[in-house]
């Protein structure tokens, strides 16, 4: 039997998504993504909204933000704070793992 092998694209710092692409990837509305950007929780490249480009890291953050809002009922400021703290914990833990 012939096995079909699928090739994927790595979504990394170099991959950039437009506003509409990140909305589809999160199944969210554009308004909600815009609110996250205005709160400073997401940091797209480009100053004008129609030129915004989101990195793979933004996509992860947007999805985490969705879950935090849905599951814990956080508001935007709370989400932005939680994302910052999660970032900080991640970098501390990876530094800690060098010493363990």
């Amino acid at each position, binding site marked *: 039997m012939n*096995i*079909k*092998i*699928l*090739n*994927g*694209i*790595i*979504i*990394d710092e170099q991959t950039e998504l437009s506003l509409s692409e990140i909305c*589809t*990837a999160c*199944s969210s509305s554009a308004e909600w993504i815009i609110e996250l950007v205005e709160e400073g929780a997401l940091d797209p490249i480009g100053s004008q909204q129609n030129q915004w480009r989101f990195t*793979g890291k933004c*996509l*992860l953050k947007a*999805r*985490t933000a969705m*879950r*935090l809002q*849905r*599951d*814990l*009922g956080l508001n935007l400021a709370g989400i932005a704070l*939680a994302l910052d703290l*999660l970032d900080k914990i991640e970098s501390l833990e*990876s530094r800690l*793992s*060098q010493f363990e």
Partner: protein
Amino acid sequence: MDYKDYYKIMGVEKDASQDEIKRAYRKLARKYHPDVSKESDAELRFKEVGEAYEALKDPEKRAAYDQLGSNWKAGQDFNPPPDWNAGFEFSGGGYTGADDADYSDFFESLFGRGFGSSQAHHRTGRTDGYSLRGEDHHAKVIIDLEDAYQGATRAVTLQSPVVDNSGHVTTKQRTLNIKIPKGVKQGQRIRLNGQGSPGMGQAPAGDLYLEIEFKQHHIYRVDGHDVYIDLPVAPWEAALGATVKVPTPDGVVDLKIAAGTKTGQKLRLKARGIPGKPPGDLYVIPSITLPSADSDAAKELYRKMEQEMAYNPRSKLGV
């Protein structure tokens, strides 16, 4: 099917007020949220707590649940008594929060599946038009560090809910063979175009996103695209210098250790981390280990060192 004690899961008394239940839920949800918690069973616990809250937060569902009686023990085999919910009126609306498909059989036998709300509507929240791009799917795939160096092909089994013609939801399994590209890093996503849910009408299918996670390795640690390894070194190798063999995910290499090497120093092997543009580095951390003094000859050598080397390892401590 096992009986579930929702009060026990939430850690509240049977006569807890709705406010107490809400507080308990908020606390547990923060504790076990998979994005926040590092506990290994966080996801499972989070779902369990979500289900318990779903049943108890609604006074109607709670009253119905209470009516089952308190003789049931958690884990006990359970079948709902016939007409158990007669006389209870659920005001519909279905359930909110987590995905319907995540609830246990026990929950569904009591409260049904997604009653009141149409499944498709509930899942996508977008009903306008008959051409609708399929939903994106997300899944996690666990690979070995070596796979990131060499690339690999992995069979990934995914379960996705499917709605049949009569509106029932079943989970369908499918297996995809996916090429893991060389140079992937922990936490990165791989996008497979068109492998998500099929679109409605003429619209294209959604995409599948795979999150890469490295299996914990017994000798390497990974940080971004850099890789770390602890290298045990004999005292004479560290003191006099030596060329020693070091394993790397790409194969064994010879490493020159300078005379006077100390434990904890970082020796960098450039571009021997995870491949990419730019590639990561491999850091070798020497750790000097002592041969045990388990023979007379070994003891004699240690005594000789003690006598002939004027060495005070605690000189910096002033003693």
